[in-house]
């Protein structure tokens, strides 16, 4: 099928929160763009490939805000090719490459490198996060203007927090000139140093080094306070505690324009799971106890949390085979995040489909101010068909990510991206679709 084919996706439930659209209808993709939502037969071009999406969700392609792609320097974990392919398989049409590569993405040349590699891979769109500080050392501002000129869509020293309060304040002010958001993951590291898991009863029994919830709460409080002072643009990339949720809720009620994300792992997995000592469960923010998870899920549903992020941190097997103290944080999630949202949140009735799409596509696109996350006519056609009933078992051979550090291996998940278009080109297709290519 040619790249600029015309597609008519029929019989699916189209959900586009950006237009408050939710209903069974038809979506026309023509010349790489969304050509029409619910067109009449008369409006259809002559040569159209029909896709039957009965029983499926048709949504804007998902958007991830901070994806570790391993390149340059950490190719044993992931490459731009494998990571952006895993993204497609997971329903993501846009991802933002995290800046914690080796060397870190703190120069225009580094941004350019990632963009070129991504263009060559030609899978999902790959945006680039630039470092907030030179060398990600958290001391001096990176050349943010140059990074933005080269195409950086946001600034982040992630996955770790911006510990230097003065630097964050300065950065929030400086970035006002560029209208780019700063991504921070709140954590007071002096309270979590050497930590392996959430401080609580499971941690007390297992005697793994603790990461207390207040380490996040305190930093969230600091970040919100600085945001109120500077009126800058701040996105808290992954919060995980009840305390953070309450702080954000109060701050938003006061009118603060903060946006907030939560990682899928922090919505699905409890700290209890670490009783298996499975190193793929060592993540930061750590898996929390039930009350924190409940608070986060409620906050996603009620709008306090804006974004569900995959939090993709691929780690090679040899890194994850060490003792838990030495194992690096991280979970490989791009391949499974959408299915986790469906299995753990939508199916049990804790989240609606429209809200899920809003948190997975609409809102993250808005945070980065990128032209994605909606099915508006004229938009580049980044579209996903999701089969919410598909049952599949997570196996390393099924994962496109180079690393399979996920606790889901061997488990069955429900729901899957069936077909994914980027720029109107069908780039991932499980073949379940029945598309007679005639009119």
């Amino acid at each position, binding site marked *: 099928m040619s790249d600029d084919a015309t597609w008519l996706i029929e019989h699916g439930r189209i959900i586009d929160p950006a237009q408050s659209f939710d209903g069974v209808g038809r979506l026309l993709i023509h010349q790489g763009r969304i050509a029409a939502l619910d067109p009449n037969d008369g409006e259809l071009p002559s040569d159209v490939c029909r896709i039957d999406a009965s029983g499926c969700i048709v949504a804007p392609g998902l958007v991830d805000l901070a994806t570790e792609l391993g390149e340059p320097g950490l190719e044993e974990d992931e490459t731009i090719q494998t990571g952006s392919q895993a993204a497609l398989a997971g329903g993501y049409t846009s991802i933002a490459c995290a800046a914690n590569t080796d060397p870190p993405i703190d120069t225009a040349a580094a941004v350019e490198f990632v963009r070129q590699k991504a263009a060559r891979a030609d899978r999902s769109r790959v945006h680039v996060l630039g470092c907030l500080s030179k060398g990600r050392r958290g001391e001096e501002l990176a050349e943010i203007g140059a990074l933005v000129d080269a195409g950086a869509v946001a600034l982040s020293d992630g996955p770790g927090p911006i510990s230097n309060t003065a630097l964050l304040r300065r950065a929030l002010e400086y970035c006002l000139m560029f209208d780019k958001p700063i991504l921070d993951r709140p954590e007071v590291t002096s309270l979590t140093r050497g930590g392996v898991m959430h401080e609580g009863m499971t941690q007390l029994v297992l*005697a*793994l080094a603790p990461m207390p919830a207040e380490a996040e709460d305190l930093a969230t409080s600091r970040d919100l306070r600085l945001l109120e002072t500077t009126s800058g643009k701040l996105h808290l990339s992954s919060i995980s505690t009840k305390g953070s949720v309450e702080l954000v809720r109060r701050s938003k009620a006061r009118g603060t324009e903060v946006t907030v994300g939560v990682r899928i792992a922090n919505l699905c997995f409890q700290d209890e799971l670490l*009783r*298996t000592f499975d*190193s793929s469960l060592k993540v930061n923010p750590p898996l929390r106890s039930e009350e924190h998870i409940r608070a986060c899920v409620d906050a996603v549903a009620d709008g306090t949390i804006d974004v569900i992020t995959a939090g993709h941190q691929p780690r090679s097997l040899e890194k994850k*085979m060490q*003792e838990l*103290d030495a194992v690096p944080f991280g979970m490989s999630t791009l391949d499974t995040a959408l299915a986790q949202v469906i299995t753990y949140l939508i199916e049990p009735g804790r989240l609606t489909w429209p809200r899920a799409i809003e948190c997975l596509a609409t809102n993250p696109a808005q945070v980065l101010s990128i032209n994605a996350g909606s099915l508006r006519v004229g938009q580049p056609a980044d579209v996903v068909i999701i089969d919410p009933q598909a049952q599949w078992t997570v196996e390393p051979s099924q994962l496109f990510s180079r690393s399979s550090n996920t606790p889901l291996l061997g488990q069955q998940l429900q729901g899957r991206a069936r077909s994914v278009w980027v720029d109107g080109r069908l780039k991932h297709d499980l073949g379940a679709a029945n598309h007679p290519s005639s009119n």
Partner: protein
Amino acid sequence: MSEPIDVSLNRLAEGWRHRHLLNLESLSPEDITIILDVAEVLIAATKSEGRKLSLLTGKTIANLFFENSTRTRNSFSLAAKRLGADTIEFSSSGSSVAKGETFIDTAKTIEAMGVDAVVTRHGTPGTSDLLAQHLDCSVLNAGDGPHEHPTQGLLDILTIQQNRGSVAGLTVALVGDIAHSRTARSNIWGLKKLGAHVIVCGPATLVSRKWEALGVEVAHRLDDILPRCDVLNLLRIQFERQAASPFPSVREYALLYAMNAERMRKSKDNILIMAPGPINRGVEITPEVADGPHSVILQQVSNGIAIRMAALWLLLASPTAKVVVAKPTESTKGLA
């Protein structure tokens, strides 16, 4: 000659179903009783039949120690030898990262040399569980960081039982650095399962109120609980596990928690003084108490060998050990 002891051991071990000994948390009271009973039989047998038995002849046991230890390692070696098994010693301090080999690979290499059990100690919780998941042979946890040290818990219980007949109904205080103590955790699980009342006592920075959720009493002043205690188990301060000092000075610690002659006078007449060792004389215990008539510290050491013999025999030669087919994930299921 070993025929009669085989018979009595097999009868005792009828209910035993485990391939690994990783913790006391997941054992039942019956499991614990089996180990204690087997240990008593082995103590009697080594006395009557001479020091060496041939219950594990032909078996090979590897001591795989990633953390420094002389006492526990020697105790396990002796236990293996007294049962007629061969032993291999492997020790490595420093992390596996520094060597460029993961600890799992190290263990697999040792296993490939043909061993029936691996006795392992490591500074990180969960390492013995992970080895049990990755190896086909039996795994005995000889201490995984501050998490558990099951044979230490068992030998402490055996020592109390020998002196008091039973631990049920006794008040046992664990004193010291509870947070960083694998001995404390294993003692708590074992003692609670057998019906003892357990008090954990130490500075508030090393034992918080959260511990009450485990069904233990939390105390911060030794003098407050002392008159009620039947047994005191004085844990060593784990200076090496502290990121920042959890109390102002050793002198202040000794002032509040050291078991000395004066505190002995406030204790019950028949109080048992225990310490897992190595003891810091003058910190948690003064010499006159350590060497005094209430001290059973050396009895703990000799019981350690008996408990380890019992554990090795149960895992390698009991009726269950002969039937159970290798199932690498069994151990983790038992934990959940």
